[in-house]
């Protein structure tokens, strides 16, 4: 067996103020040069586990600590954090708060200065680590000038500068757009493969973890439930789903096929293997003709939003939108996707009149939005922005929900009725007297949605509601969006998480560089993989497998989800019994 870099032995831990144990009897060895992925739902103890490796748990937080952690032979309770900081480089989730210096080179120098590394040595290391994360030439730039992906790569470089034996990354891609996430994964993989850096990474990105990790540790409720290679862990779909962890879609597809007793020897965890396995399933099973998907009812009626030749140029000269035209009709559920900078938010801000067209027009119900005040529009259009914490102003959930109603001068009775209805709809009645910020993140998002629903808007826009949420949290919010849609509201969602959307959206607008690249029903849009990839969006694996099926079979299979894909196969009679 390879050299061991870190050993956790029967580790249990309780924060000073947590009600119970956050880690429970975890024993784990981390080997030199491996890429260990840590997966599990929010609250599983993943971040805490990471923090035990550099002694921050328990030395900084205090609390009750049982067992031991050794990193490079150093006991993390007995050695000061500053000494452990030489062994462990850390990268955290939020790209903003972890960059503390005013320039790229200062950021890398900061831990080294604290460790009293001589200046000459610091100067030697800066270009070296910048090259490793492909940021050479950025030495003098301010962190504010970097993109999200670049910020995280800089954080990695700063972690590498101490020449650690272990690099720990806690959800480094969850706040990034797909391009940024790809950049970070590429860099981490290169560090691991080329430079032999030992990696410990927590992530919800199942497809990428399957691709890159050597081993996975599944954590839930503070316990280590499973440990093994991705090929051992991800096929245990039932175990994962019980613990609210999303497996790669390719696993779900073949897991379902195996449940249907189709010939699946090993459940593949990576797309390429999935394509191989698909061939053997085709040989050993029976492929049904493509299911008929009734064309979605053609939108009718007068458009709710009518955008004509909309151009927007920001004051600094950036051309954000180049002559966009589209109609959105009442009752539609529209998904808007595209890279950061594609113009999604700029477009939506025109609906709300937060931005004014440089050219062209935006009409709502036949009225030019320029003639309406933001406050008038906001009463018809509910806008749920990405960060719920920026939208919480009041001391109790109830006051938060009634805040705007009161300020708008509704009678106390109307305020009370609407507030109650809204609280009920979001399942927040029991916490109505609590402070919104004392609730977990998922519930805080619901408080904001409740406050917006209380205004009884006809249209609701969710701007990246799933960023930073785990699978369960993301599904919860999207389920709300579906309920609203079923109530007859018009719903517009902006997200990067394509795999989440097939069960919700009907129509997809793909934007790129300020134009509409594609506007089509979801099946057509998701299967136009070329257009998606041209704007760095990766279609869900189920779609890519369906494309492969098309290639092998010759018929078109416009499928979107693992379940649909699995539904297209049947056992051959008499085969395998």
């Amino acid at each position, binding site marked *: 067996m390879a050299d061991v870099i870190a050993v956790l032995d029967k580790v249990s831990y309780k924060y000073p103020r947590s009600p119970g*144990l956050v880690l429970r009897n975890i024993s784990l060895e981390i080997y030199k040069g491996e890429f260990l992925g840590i997966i599990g739902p929010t609250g599983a103890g993943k971040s805490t586990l990471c923090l035990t490796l550099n002694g921050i748990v*328990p030395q900084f937080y205090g609390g009750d600590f049982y067992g031991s952690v050794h990193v490079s032979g150093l006991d993390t309770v007995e050695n000061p954090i500053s000494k452990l900081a030489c062994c462990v480089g850390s990268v955290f989730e939020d790209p903003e708060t972890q960059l503390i210096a005013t320039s790229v080179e200062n950021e890398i120098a900061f831990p080294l200065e604290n460790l009293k590394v001589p200046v000459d040595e610091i100067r030697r290391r800066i270009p070296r680590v910048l090259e490793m994360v492909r940021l050479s030439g950025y030495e003098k730039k301010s962190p504010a000038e970097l993109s999200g992906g670049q910020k995280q790569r800089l954080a990695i470089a700063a972690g590498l500068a101490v020449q650690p034996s272990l690099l720990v990354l806690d959800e480094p891609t969850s706040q990034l757009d797909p391009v940024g996430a790809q950049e970070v994964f590429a860099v981490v993989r290169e560090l691991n493969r080329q430079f032999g850096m030992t990696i410990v990474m927590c992530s919800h990105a199942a497809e990428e973890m399957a691709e890159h990790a050597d081993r996975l540790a599944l954590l839930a409720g503070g316990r280590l439930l499973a440990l093994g290679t991705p090929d051992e862990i991800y096929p245990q779909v039932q175990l994962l789903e019980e613990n609210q962890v999303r497996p790669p879609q390719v696993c779900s597809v073949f897991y379902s096929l195996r449940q249907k007793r189709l010939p699946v020897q090993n459940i593949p965890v990576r797309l390429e293997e999935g394509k191989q396995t698909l061939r053997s399933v085709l040989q050993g099973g029976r492929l049904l003709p493509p299911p008929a998907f009734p064309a979605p009812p053609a939108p009718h009626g007068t458009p709710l939003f009518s955008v004509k030749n909309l151009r927007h140029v920001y004051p600094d000269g950036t051309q954000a939108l180049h002559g966009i035209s589209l109609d959105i009709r009442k009752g539609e559920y529209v998904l808007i996707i595209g890279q950061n900078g594609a113009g999604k938010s700029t477009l939506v801000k025109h609906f709300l009149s937060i931005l004014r067209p440089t050219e062209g027009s935006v009409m709502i119900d036949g009225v030019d939005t320029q003639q309406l005040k933001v406050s008038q529009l906001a009463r018809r259009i509910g806008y749920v922005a990405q960060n719920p914490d920026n939208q919480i102003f009041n001391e109790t959930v109830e006051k938060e929900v009634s805040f705007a109603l009161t300020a708008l001068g509704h009678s106390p009775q109307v305020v009370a009725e609407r507030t109650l209805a809204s609280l009920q709809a979001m399942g927040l009645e029991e916490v109505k007297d609590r402070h919104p910020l004392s609730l977990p993140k998922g519930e805080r998002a619901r408080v904001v949605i409740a406050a917006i629903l209380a205004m009884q808007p006809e249209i609701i826009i969710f701007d990246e509601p799933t960023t930073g949420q785990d699978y369960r949290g993301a599904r919860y919010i999207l389920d709300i969006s579906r309920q609203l849609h079923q109530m007859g509201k018009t719903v517009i969602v902006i997200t990067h998480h394509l795999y989440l959307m097939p069960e919700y959206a009907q129509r997809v607008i793909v934007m790129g560089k300020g134009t509409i690249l594609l506007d089509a029903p979801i099946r057509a849009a998701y299967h136009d993989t070329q257009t998606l990839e041209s704007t760095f969006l990766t279609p869900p694996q189920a779609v890519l497998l369906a494309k492969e099926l098309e290639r092998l079979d010759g018929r078109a299979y416009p499928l979107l989800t693992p379940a649909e894909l699995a539904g297209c196969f049947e056992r051959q009679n008499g085969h395998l019994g």
Partner: protein
Amino acid sequence: MSDAPTGEKRKVAFLGGAAIDGAPIAYIVVLAAVTTALAFIPFSFALAGGGSFPLSQGIWALLGILLGPIAGAISVGIGTLIAIFVAPHTAGVPVVTLLQSILCAFAAGCMSAQAKRGGWWIIAAVLGGVGGLYYIGRAISVNGVSLGAAVLGSLIQIIGWLLYVLPTRNLFGKWVGSKNVVLLALGVILCTATSFAVAHFFATAITYTMFNWPQEVFLLLASIIPVEYMFRFIVAGVIGVGVIVGLRAIGLVKPERGLY
């Protein structure tokens, strides 16, 4: 699977992070950054006479309340200094704005009967008191302002200073720690009012030496200052109550010298 820890319980030396006078450095940093950011948000009130002050003035005292006298003063001071460095033209007389903000946070941070810092309020009270006396004295002796106009023009500061020197200081400080939201609001507003008055007196001593306003301007000030103060109190009350109730709800570690 048993949940009881099977590993040996370890003795943990709790270190905590770097701190100044009991306030974690990270708190001081983010609140300084808040001060800088709010310094660029002008707070205009459209009323007769008009006027505007940056929103940051509404949190000077609050930072003293949250972090204690030393850490609060450092946080406000650095935040204000950076605002001055970034946009010198927005700060009035830069040096005076800086000193005033520091003294305001310091004075507010001293508004508690905590034994260890029992006497520190005297520093603030003396600075304010001497400043006030000098200012009113100069107005009367050098500029020929009548006693009545001088007193009227600084009535609010005089009352504020008196309430700061009297035991009401500790009472207001105690209210800030109250669970009762009304008392909390009163506490925040009165802490802000009195500490702001103390710092204002001190600052006026300097600005007045520069500006030497004649009596007519005094009378104008007498009409504007109370309005300005009133808006400052509302701002401070709304922010202070919202922030303190929020902090208690989130359960963040309270800095050692915080009053809330």
